């Protein structure tokens, strides 16, 4: 490693200076795929602030392993991950295991951008407590996606969807929720659609949802293990309607893995189940580095940088703060979204309620129940 774990001053707690004494190296671990959106922002900051950050290294991992790794480093007293970009799952797991340095409210004043969060992003920020800083945000889903050529009259409600599935066994597909964003969004969106008693309590409050899924299960032949596969099946015709989200709608069409003509629909009375990515700093990171990171985050939360989050619809829309119109985004983004974007999203986002996703514990419980009662039910037959 280029620098010793623990960093240049060796101090990992106490007050964080305004600026690092000399340029530091920052090791960033991305467990949410967030670099797709933010690497441009970070690189730009580094190129402009060579006095603070000499070099950034990026590594990537999946969320679940993150905890083990950080824990191992912290137990040994040598932390060499300085900044983690994570989704809700990694964030929550880290909070649960007390891995993260509390940045708030101590340094809230250094991150003025946080005051400009979109309402949905602000709600997501609450999930992060004192630990994470929301860097990107999107309302996600649930949406349904289909090829208009094959589905003449798409379902308009949850009941319609069930009827469609009944009429076309095997045609409705959603990926196993624990392996798929759209899958879990669909799962978390259903209680709102069906009017369950407590949409935040999958074990006791989702009676209608489970009944609905069990019924739907009779006509689902297959729960793929990745969202990509549902997309592929949609494209090659072996599935007719799949669960989706805004990002999964636009980006795969840009990439060409789903036909451009694919359409999305919503089910009547749905609530958006939002999603966000967070920046967190593990405990044990040198204060000099913390200083550089705080300055980096401050920069990332400015509109000019946030506009980069439009990307090619990867996390559509993407920016976490207000007043970042598409016109500020890089030319490439504007072009891709001009061709593949859907103007109707703006309206849909504005006119439907936003809900924060389940917290980590509840989500795991929901996955478990789904695995046992829905996905696993096939075996017991």
């Amino acid at each position: 490693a280029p620098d010793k774990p623990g960093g240049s001053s060796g101090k990992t707690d106490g007050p964080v200076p305004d600026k690092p004494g000399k340029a530091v190296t920052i090791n960033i671990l991305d467990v949410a795929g967030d670099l797709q959106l933010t690497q441009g922002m970070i690189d730009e900051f580094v190129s402009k602030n060579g006095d603070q950050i000499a070099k950034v290294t990026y590594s990537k991992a999946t969320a679940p392993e993150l905890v083990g790794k950080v824990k191992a480093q912290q137990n040994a007293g040598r932390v060499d991950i300085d900044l983690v970009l994570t989704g809700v799952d990694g964030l929550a797991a880290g909070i649960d295991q007390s891995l993260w340095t509390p940045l708030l409210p101590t340094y809230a004043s250094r991150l003025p951008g946080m005051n400009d969060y979109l309402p949905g992003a602000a709600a997501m920020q609450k999930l992060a407590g004192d630990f994470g800083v929301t860097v990107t945000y999107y309302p996600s889903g649930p949406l349904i996606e289909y090829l208009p050529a094959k589905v003449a009259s798409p379902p308009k409600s949850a009941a319609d969807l069930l009827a469609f599935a009944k009429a076309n066994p095997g045609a409705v597909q959603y990926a196993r929720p624990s392996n798929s964003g759209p899958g879990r969004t669909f799962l978390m969106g259903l209680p709102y659609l069906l009017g369950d008693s407590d949409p935040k309590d999958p074990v006791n409050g989702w009676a209608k949802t489970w009944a609905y899924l069990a019924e739907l299960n009779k006509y689902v032949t297959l729960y793929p293990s990745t969202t990509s596969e549902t997309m592929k099946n949609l494209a090659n015709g072996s599935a007719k309607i799949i669960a989706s989200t805004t990002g999964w709608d636009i980006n795969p069409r840009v990439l060409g893995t789903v036909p451009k003509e694919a359409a999305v629909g919503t089910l009547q009375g749905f609530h958006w189940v939002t999603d966000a990515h967070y920046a967190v700093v593990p405990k044990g990171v040198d204060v000099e580095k913390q200083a550089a990171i705080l300055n980096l985050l401050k920069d990332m939360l400015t509109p000019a940088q946030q506009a980069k989050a439009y990307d090619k619809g990867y996390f559509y829309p993407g920016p976490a703060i207000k007043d970042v119109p598409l016109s500020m985004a890089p030319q490439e983004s504007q072009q891709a979204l001009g061709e593949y974007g859907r103007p109707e999203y703006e309206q849909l986002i504005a006119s439907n309620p936003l809900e924060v996703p389940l917290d980590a514990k509840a989500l795991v419980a929901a996955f478990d129940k789904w695995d046992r009662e829905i996905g696993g039910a096939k075996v017991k037959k």
Partner: protein
Amino acid sequence: MRRRLVASPGAWVVWGAVTFFFVMLAGVIFSVLVSSFGRRWFDTWLPESWTGQWYGQAWREFTLPAVLVVTIEVSMLVVLISVLVGVPASYVLARKKFPGRRLLYLLFLLPILMPPITYGIPLATVLYKYGFAGNMSGVVLANLVPSIPFVILTMTPFIEQVDPAIERAARMCGARTWQVFARILAPLLVPGILAASILVLVRTVGMFELTFLTAGPDSQTLVVALYYTMSAAGIRAQQSVDAMAVIYTSMMLVLLVVALRFVNPTQLVARVKEDVD
């Protein structure tokens, strides 16, 4: 030399099965290869058009050249060390009957049997504590845990096959133990060592958990990138997974072919015993 050309029914069945296996294999490999170069492949035999963009993307996103170098360094080191440490141990286990031998064999068996979850995190902690993790030495050390026993397990039957009189003869010629190993046993065991090395190599290159837990930013291996592409959150085109998989496979293939170039796994010992025809 006349050979009997009429093959027995047994041979037909065997070669038929081999052919079928090859066809399936070719299908599997080519479908991924085609997909990794394809753009828009929907309900058709072949994609609409071809592109190299998935490779370009993987290249940029993961700084692959550095990752490849690290992967090769790590796997070579692991193979080397585990053979150096494992073969002598398997020698003793194969040749000697001593009290506690079975127990020891069991102990060597355990690391292969136990999933890395059981020991991965504490192991990483230990390695971090002594400054080994976060760089290449940690990755190598962690990967030795399943590799050494693997070598021991595969090599023991091999060594049992070698006539002990040959070693005695070497000793009578004045060879010390290490010379017996280097000059006599090693060449005779080449097929076995090679087989074991290839398998260790494959396992090391493919070992995700232990590598991830102990790798630092500069010591990531290809499999970490591959797993990320495959199972991390976020949108991924199927094709970019395919492209990563193809890169991974090509690298392994190069390693394998290089290995087989230098030594043919079946001929060294066999040459001595086979006829020349």
